[in-house]
């Protein structure tokens, strides 16, 4: 209970922080396009996905206010993403060894 009570405080994210996040996202978008033009082989997928994860993390943390939420929501988000990873990953027990 104690843990859940904390989450209800109001938090305002300033325009400036939002602008900074936006700028970072823009730079990362440019970066991911640039990376895709390099000759990296499999590195393409890993590099692009890493950048996408970073961008997604920024959106979740700031635009979606997750960095100000309590532990409960973060845990639940983690569980949901883990579930998705398991669904995709475990399917490869089949696909990768067929």
């Amino acid at each position, binding site marked *: 209970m104690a843990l859940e009570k904390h*989450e209800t405080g109001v938090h305002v994210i300033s*325009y400036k922080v939002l602008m900074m996040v936006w700028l970072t996202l823009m730079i990362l978008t440019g970066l991911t396009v640039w990376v895709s033009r390099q000759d990296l082989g499999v590195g393409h997928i890993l590099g692009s996905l890493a950048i996408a994860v970073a961008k997604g993390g920024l959106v*979740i943390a700031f*635009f979606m206010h997750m960095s100000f939420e309590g532990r409960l929501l973060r845990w639940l988000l983690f569980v949901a993403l883990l579930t998705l990873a398991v669904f*995709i990953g475990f399917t490869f027990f089949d696909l990768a060894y067929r």
Partner: protein
Amino acid sequence: MIQRDENRYAGAKLGIWLFLFTEILLFGGLFLLYAAYLSQYPHEFASAGHEMQLAFGFANTLVLITSSMLAAMSLTAVQLREQRKALIMLGATIFCAIIFLVNKYFEWSSEINSGFYPNSPRLATGPMGEALYFSLYYLTTGLHGLHVLIGIVLLTLVSVKVSHGTIHAGNYVLLENSALYWHLVDLIWIFIFPLYYLVL
């Protein structure tokens, strides 16, 4: 009573996040298929991916990220009791969303004109994996586009409520939740963009 309102606010927040999880898992099924077929047909996926027009995807990424920021700003504005600013931000968000769809329309038209659509003669005679790539592409971006459309309706509704003052600094959970939904639409696109336009 304050306690109860606060509880209701936190409940609504938890509820919308749970809903967003279901959205993630819904798209997850399509990402699963993408992963599966990419591993099976890496070369066909690559050659199909080269048919994509990066400019469309790139522009839409910028538009959607911007709209996401504007939605976040409209929440800040409401919290700071800047109603007019909030309305402008929301209007701009909706404007971006419409741009996104218009852009998507042109992109799809151009691809369909080049003979890329599910069950098209060009794909039916081409290598197997390419048809799968385009089927997945249309399903994923189509489902995403549907979400953009729902987002436009939702944000319009919220704008009306903000202008009427029913959403204000004391009660903005509907705005916050609609914005969260909109960020999710952005989030999904952040993954669609590299997977379909870049990595191949």
